[in-house]
């Protein structure tokens, strides 16, 4: 059984199909890239999986259970986490708090524990903190040390992207959705993050779906590539297959002039 199955997914905004007839599956342990020109419906696809937009029709099955009609927090609890294209951190919370708060759905202490400082509360609080530090140390020295207590808005752009990934990791997902993780990074940072994505799967065991425009990253990390155009999947397969597919080239570069009807 696949980890995530998309069946005939369709999303319509006021008569415009943002996605239609999307049909594919993601296996456990895979890294899949979703590419396509701007406006192809890639982010809409992520929004649908994470429960932010209800699909018009179709089915999304995660680990054998439908996620349709669930609130986003319930979907996250099932094991799907995501990042955002336009980084959306909690800007006035510290780096550490950003990661700690994301473990919300894996922890349980409420008001009473906090007020009476019960043993269970202290233990859980310690675990949350340690876990957060462990996750942040995954990014080397960039997000630890004095930066733990810095507010997120004071971070550099690249660090914000890293922190967003850390925050998604903290929800302890099985499926990680990364929306343009290297957008706006310089070549060195991009290379570094590309390597990290591979390690995310190998060391942490996440299945990963990436939306990305940087073809080098796509080539380096993905097991499989899905190409969307105008909400319709036009090709699937390995990077090499897809990159030579005439439909894909046409979608990106446009039809040759003489072929226009």
């Amino acid at each position, binding site marked *: 059984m696949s980890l995530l199955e998309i069946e005939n997914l369709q999303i319509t905004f006021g008569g415009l199909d943002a996605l239609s007839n999307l049909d594919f599956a993601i296996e456990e342990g895979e890294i899949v890239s979703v590419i396509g020109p701007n406006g192809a419906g890639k982010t809409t696809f992520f929004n649908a999986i994470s429960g932010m937009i209800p699909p018009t029709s179709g089915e999304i099955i995660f680990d054998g259970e439908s996620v349709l009609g669930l609130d986003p927090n319930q979907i996250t609890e099932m094991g799907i*986490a995501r990042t955002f294209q336009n980084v959306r951190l909690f800007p006035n919370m510290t780096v550490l708090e950003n990661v700690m708060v994301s473990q919300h759905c894996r922890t349980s202490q409420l008001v009473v524990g*906090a007020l009476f400082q019960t043993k269970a509360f202290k233990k859980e609080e310690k675990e949350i903190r340690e876990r957060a530090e462990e996750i942040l140390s995954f990014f080397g020295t960039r997000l630890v040390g004095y930066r733990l207590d810095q507010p997120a808005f004071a971070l550099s752009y690249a660090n914000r992207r890293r922190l967003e990934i850390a925050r998604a990791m903290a929800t302890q997902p099985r499926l990680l959705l990364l929306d343009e993780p290297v957008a706006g990074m310089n070549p060195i940072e991009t290379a570094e993050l590309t390597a990290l994505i591979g390690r995310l799967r190998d060391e942490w065991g996440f299945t990963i779906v990436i939306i990305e425009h940087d073809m080098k990253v796509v080539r380096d990390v993905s097991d499989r590539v899905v190409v969307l155009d105008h909400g319709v999947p036009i090709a699937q397969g390995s990077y090499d297959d897809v990159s030579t597919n005439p439909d894909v080239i046409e979608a990106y570069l446009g039809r040759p002039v003489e072929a226009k009807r």
Partner: protein
Amino acid sequence: MMSTSLPSRKLFDQDWKRVSFWGSICALSQVFICLVGLPAELNRRILIESTLSLGYLFIIWVPLVFGYVVSKMVELEGVENPKPGAAELLSGAITGLLGGLGLVVLMLGIDNFDLRDPLLNWNPKLLRLLTFENSIGFGSMIWLLVGVGLGVFGASLHQMTTRIRKMVAYAIFGLFTLAVLEDVIDDLSEGLRLEWLSDMIYAKRGGITVTSTIVIAVVLAALPLLTRGKVKEAVSRYRSSDNPAEQQRNSIVLFALVAVVFLVLPWFLGGIINELLANVGLFLLLALGLNIVVGLAGLLDLGYVAFFAVGGYTTAVFTSPNSPWFSPETHFGISLLVVVVMATLAGLLIGAPVIRMRGDYLAIVTLGFGEIIRLLFLSDWLKPYLGGSQGITNIPGIDLGPWEVRGADPRSVFYMVLAFCVLAIYVSWRLQGSRIGRAWMAIREDESVAEVMGINTVNSKLMAFVVGAVLASFSGAVLAAKVGSVFPKSFEILVSIIILVVVIVGGMGSITGVMVGSLVLIGILGGPRQPGLLQEFQNYKLLIYGALLVFMMLKRPEGLVPTARRTRELHQEEYLQDAWLGDDDSEQQEEAGERL
């Protein structure tokens, strides 16, 4: 990064448009303040014997502030400003002069036309006040001179060295505080058997004596010279200590100090001041609750008074022998349990329908709920249960075995309120640093992302509502026992707004801020019905609160005492991280940036 290398402007090289604009605003503000009636009413309060009353203070701060504003240079990056000099002083002077002219025109107007019909304060009393019971010519002279003088003074604030500016600020602010706190110091020195001290500072008929004004001003001005920034250093060391254990120790020491002061203080204070402190405490309790709802969870609850009312009425119904339908008198402790249950229910009942609404709709709908509850308490429909407009009277005090807490003994009420406040502070402090507190903050920052990150926003928000409701209901319960009666009139929307002002002025989300906010605002200006230290403000409280709310939102949205988090924000920034350079290089540059 002030760049002042350009030579200063020539004396008459003025931006006339700007100066005349601010000058006319200055004049309009002064005339407005006079016509609203502030000076006439506040004239009763004397700050400095036979020299300055609060009423006059309210006129003369205007040219000072506008003189400061008009001579302030706009600093643009890469543009060098001329060195401030005499030209700036002149703009301040002109602004003040125009302000004074406004008052002259007003005096002539009052003397020659009768507009008393719509304008209540267009009367001889105001004229007498403005002319110092003398001729209009004399008054005009004085006001023009005062305007020019203060305008220049305001403008000169930019040109003083930091130390002198600090000395001036210490002297003015210290004297003002001393004058405002006259009642407290009088009372305290009586309690400490130090009457000679207050007799020395204050005149018989109120206000600081002229001699002591001068002496105190000199002493205060000398303070910064003596300490030479050592205090500030200590404070910043205290605030920015890296070691969490040390930080915690510091906080505990500070807290213990404050606690001891508050435990001992009431014994040296008289009834009126104790009563005042008890009122401050009641509002602090409310404000701490609202701080959780607004400051932490970001839900603008304008009907917060509803929970206050629920607490008060529940206590009234269960403890008063006069309550219309529940005749047995229960002990306050038992009724407090009922209060908690009722407040929780009210929190859920009001919270559930509004929790999914947009933030601003939530504000208006909670406001609606607050009004609905008050109207229901007032209605004939629930009169058989809650007494309608007559309310419920004869609520007994709180019987605590050896002690009894009742309104006639403000000291006991103060201790009771103090106990609840400590509880509320503890609750806020613990929740802030817990899982649920972090969830609230995340919701405040970005609700939809919080939800995607696995936070059940509906439940978390409801919890904030309930915690806030319970704290407010405690305040209501103590109020009922203190006053001995509850009326719908005590629970108007006004209460919600005033608490909101307290939270915002203090600093949203900051416990210390809320404490300072309620001490300053409720203590000095007073609550909706409770007078503060400056009782003369009674009729103008809301005017000031409204203006304060606007001012804070425009100029200092983080409040007087922002959270440590926000203070930190200003000191640490990452530099040059996005550099298109190798890893090592960027680290080095970062360090360079930090050294700058």
